[in-house]
């Protein structure tokens, strides 16, 4: 038990999820599971996926990793678009209209900020990755350089 590896922990998690999911569906007929718990499940499992995917990233690419995570975490743009497209749905209540416009402007601001990250993040990552070149090596040289890694 004490030698439990993270990998086996994850497979345990997945296994438990598979076992539990039919139960979840069966129950949903009578009493629905709080959607928060599903979100939490997605979050926890995604954190595990992130853990393994990020450890697999070669240290040489850690800077591009950071800039590309900047870009993809700007997926908050989806929330920003929803906010910018907020609508008072025909309501003439001045307080609601005012609040909706506040939300719209906040949304537009968030769209702009997220787009700085999206364009900036992906483009600068691309620029960096374009610089990583492999050695042009004739077969003989390849041998000697492989042995130097020891």
């Amino acid at each position, binding site marked *: 038990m004490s030698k439990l590896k993270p990998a086996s922990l994850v497979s345990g998690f997945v296994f438990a999820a598979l076992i539990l999911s039919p139960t979840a569906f069966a129950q949903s007929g009578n009493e629905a599971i709080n959607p928060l718990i599903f979100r939490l499940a997605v979050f926890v499992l995604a954190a595990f996926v992130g853990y393994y995917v990020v450890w697999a990233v070669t240290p040489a690419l850690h800077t591009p990793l950071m800039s590309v995570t900047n870009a993809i975490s700007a997926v908050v743009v989806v929330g920003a678009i929803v906010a910018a497209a907020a609508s008072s749905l025909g309501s003439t209540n001045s307080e609601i209209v005012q609040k909706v416009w506040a939300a719209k402007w906040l949304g537009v601001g968030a769209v702009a900020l997220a787009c700085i990250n999206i364009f900036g993040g992906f483009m600068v990552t691309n620029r960096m990755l374009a610089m990583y070149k492999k050695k042009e090596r004739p077969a003989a040289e390849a041998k000697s350089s492989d042995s*130097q890694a020891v």
Partner: protein
Amino acid sequence: MSTVDISALLYLVCAVLFIFAIRGLASPETARQGNKIGILGMVLAAGTTLFLVKDNLDGVTFGLITGGVVIGGGIGAVLATRAPMTSMPQMVGMFNALGGMASLLVALAAFYAPASFGLLGAEGTIAPRSLVEMSLSVLIGAITFSGSLIAALKLNGSIPGGPIILPLRHVLNLLIALGIVALIVVTANSNGAQSGGGMLLIWIAILALIFGVTLVIPIGGADMPVVVSMLNSYSGWAAAALGFTLSNFALIVVGAIVGASGAILSYIMCKAMNRSFISVIAGGFGGDDADTAVRADNSDKPVKIGSADDAAFILKNASKVIIVPGYGMAVAQAQHALKEMADSLKEAGVDVSYAIHPVAGRMPGHMNVLLAEAQVPYDEIYEMDDINSSFKQADVAFVIGANDVTNPGAKDDPSSPIYGMPVLEVWNAGTTMFIKRSLASGYAGVQNDLFYRENTMMLLDDAKKMVENIVKAL
């Protein structure tokens, strides 16, 4: 299936695409393709959202969104093409800040227009659960924003890089934290319909902004790689918190992965500096006092100083040279000259490789990017653990612009402030050459005993000029 179900599935596809984007970074060969997959994911996410809100897209709204995209995208594109590789840490720091601010703004917007986000309950109120999630998005977003801004300004040299110690900072931080918790509790019970509710979130934002500043400002420049990674992680958690509010799987998955990514990078950086995460956050490391004191008692030791010709002679006759670059090399813009030197050495039959310490630059992997920019092939570059044992077989260790990461004190001097930090064992090479402007201490403010050793040759000059002179002498 309803529109909402279809879009939820599409967001799930986006999340998978983003995972593949990061997976691509496992090797430089697949990385560029990974980046393209990431862009595809982003286009799909934005497209799905536009499809979802299409009924609300009147002319004004469409114009506003387009304006935001054009302005933001334009600024991002200009920054991405112009920023020099040396200022990547500031740039990532600034991107972290903007990401945090974007989450904050969206959370506020969700509060003002809950109906558009599907958060409005039957009685015209917002559920306490949603209010807590919004408060958390505002909180994490604001800390990320102000903390990252300070970190970026420090890295950029706009404000002093050293630790700035505020009086009673731990008490102050504790008070702010308690205040924020109290505000969140009040917000959760305010049901969101009260007109004062918006002010509660704004107060959380203000306190959190101050908290971000007091958190980062006492942390010294040497610890900035940890801080930038940590804030990178926070920007992920902020996105995840928002994902809970909007019940959006793409946001939750991306947030969790980015959060994990930043956390892992700060762990790697902490381990490479032998520092605990808590002590980094507590701050105060990297002052100047210690170094003047230690320097004084070393000043009369003999130092062997060499010229470019001496260095060229030894290098030419070596059979194996390991180059140890540090951030100083990039500051002096010496990487291209260095590449030229390595090329002429290779022509002369010398085996040249590069050794990189995890904290060699100012952010994780920074030195690899700087060398890649100078067209050094990435398969000549080795991480510390892979090359440390090879120094024994090397004739020359050529240290350029690095200092603390080669300090033998970290291995054998328990009184050294960096004792226990893993270092590149350059002293095991036949000759250690050190290009430095002066005998001053490194970024961490610690004196390096290596300068005074028998087999060390100091090359005191500007790194670029010195390397160019060596190239000439070769």
